[in-house]
């Protein structure tokens, strides 16, 4: 089974430096992109490759690995039904550029990722908690956040 029938991998690698493809254990084309080029690459994918629908933005915490976070974007081409997964690795306290300017639909999922992981999206118009109360302490989806009790310490 061909993993990437549309040849996006080659075009991306020719255009941008630092792109790492991950083929093992993935069900769809997956790339790691460097944080500083993430916005440029996602702009290219939207404008030139036709990924007009941003399906999802979320995070994964790989604590205690370093860098601990991954921000995961799921992109979709509505006409050809091609899916793409783009990942950005991120350490604690680092920020990833917001894509609200590209897809306004990223507004809430980025707020959700901020709320539940504490990942900061640079340039987001209103980066406040979305689910939890504003005075909540901690970010529940982090792996060092306990599922029982009030606090870890």
């Amino acid at each position: 089974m061909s993993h990437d029938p549309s040849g996006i991998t080659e075009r991306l690698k020719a255009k941008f430096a630092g792109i790492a493809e991950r083929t093992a254990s993935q069900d769809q084309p997956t790339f790691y992109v460097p944080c500083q080029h993430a916005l440029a690459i996602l702009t290219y994918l939207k404008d030139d490759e036709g990924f007009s629908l941003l399906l999802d933005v979320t995070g994964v915490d790989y604590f205690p690995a370093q860098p601990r976070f991954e921000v995961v974007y799921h992109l979709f081409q509505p006409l050809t039904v091609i899916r793409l997964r783009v990942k950005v690795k991120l350490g604690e306290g680092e920020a990833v550029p917001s894509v609200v300017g590209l897809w306004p639909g990223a507004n809430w999922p980025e707020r959700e990722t901020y709320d539940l992981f504490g990942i900061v999206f640079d340039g987001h118009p209103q980066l406040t908690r979305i689910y939890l109360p504003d005075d909540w302490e901690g970010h529940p989806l982090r792996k060092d956040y306990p599922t029982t009790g009030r606090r870890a310490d």
Partner: protein
Amino acid sequence: MASETQVVNHKPEAGVSPSDTMVINIGPQHPATHGVLRVRLELDGERVVRAEPVIGYLHTGFEKSAETMTYQQCNTLTDRLDYLAPMTNNLAYVLAVEKLMGIEVPKRAQYIRVMFAELTRIASHLVWLGTHLMDMGAMSPFFYMLREREVILDLIEAASGVRMNPSYFRVGGIAYDLPEGFMNKLGDFLKDFPRWMKMYRNLFEDNPLISERLKGINVLSQEGCLAHSVTGPMLRGSGLALDLRRSAPYSSYEEFEFEVPTRSEGDSFARLWVRVDEMYQSAKILEQCLDKITPQGVYMTSDGKVALPPRDQIYGDMEALIHQFKLVTAGFPVPAGEVYQGVEGPRGEMGFYLVCDGGPRPYRWRARTPSFYNLQTLPVMCEDGLVADVIVAIGSVDIVLGDVDK
């Protein structure tokens, strides 16, 4: 609440001085918000200057809970996301796990899954239609539609044992075989269905109160839908025929004949008709299920690593007993990897993104819920409109707050 005004630092629009506008809250306890949604409205007379949905009142932390549960147990969480369409949530989730494990599901189980996915689609659309019309002041359709929905819930109960939150689909197949006489009951339902629909349509079709109320309001362009990650009937109401059952078939949908209803206007009226037409298409799929699903047959994969051993073996065979015990208590391991699987739910693309580390519990369990994304368009639809149209817009998005807040 005094603190509320400090948290949301709103700026009045140009030309409107702060004293001219009024800020009111609709919800979180309001019958027209279909649950615990709060919309913070800034009004200039009857004109909406700003509309801001405030969510999180039903946040239950499913994604965190799932990390402590086995893969089979997580299935029960999916029911409670979009509680009006539990079967499509089940379907998205079990397909994701099966995709990662490479499990082949028997054809008959795939058809049964399609059947229940379509039954829930009709049930969900019935609730939506009833409440949507009720929001506009038509009380009686709601009672009729809940009555007919009850027939579908009876069918679900007959198969799974419960009306809501059935968790009927399991990784590898379905939980139990269909009860005796189930297909006859489904046949009866399908015989009655056109008659009911005719009655409903008499209530709102050609009714100027409905069409004049809905036409031309809360318009979303196709580009606006795509930019805001909108999927499902809202996107099809704006002219893009994107239906995963057709464009990326799963669970043998490619063997069924149906059409994808589409409208180009992008207003609330278009979305109403897309959903009503969809119910007929679901009934058409169910008709084909009557022929395809045999009364007897396999309903679970034979892979003993995920399927529970047959009941009669458990009482006589030590191996089977151990397998049963291990599968129920420890769960089955899922190979390390990542997977995303989306299905066409009644509200749009319901997807699951799983990160697995090789153990019996998911490392990360992400639900891509359609209502969460679709509700983001509320400000786009409502701003510069009238306050009465906000209620119609909320109904027109077809939100389920369990789906929004997770």
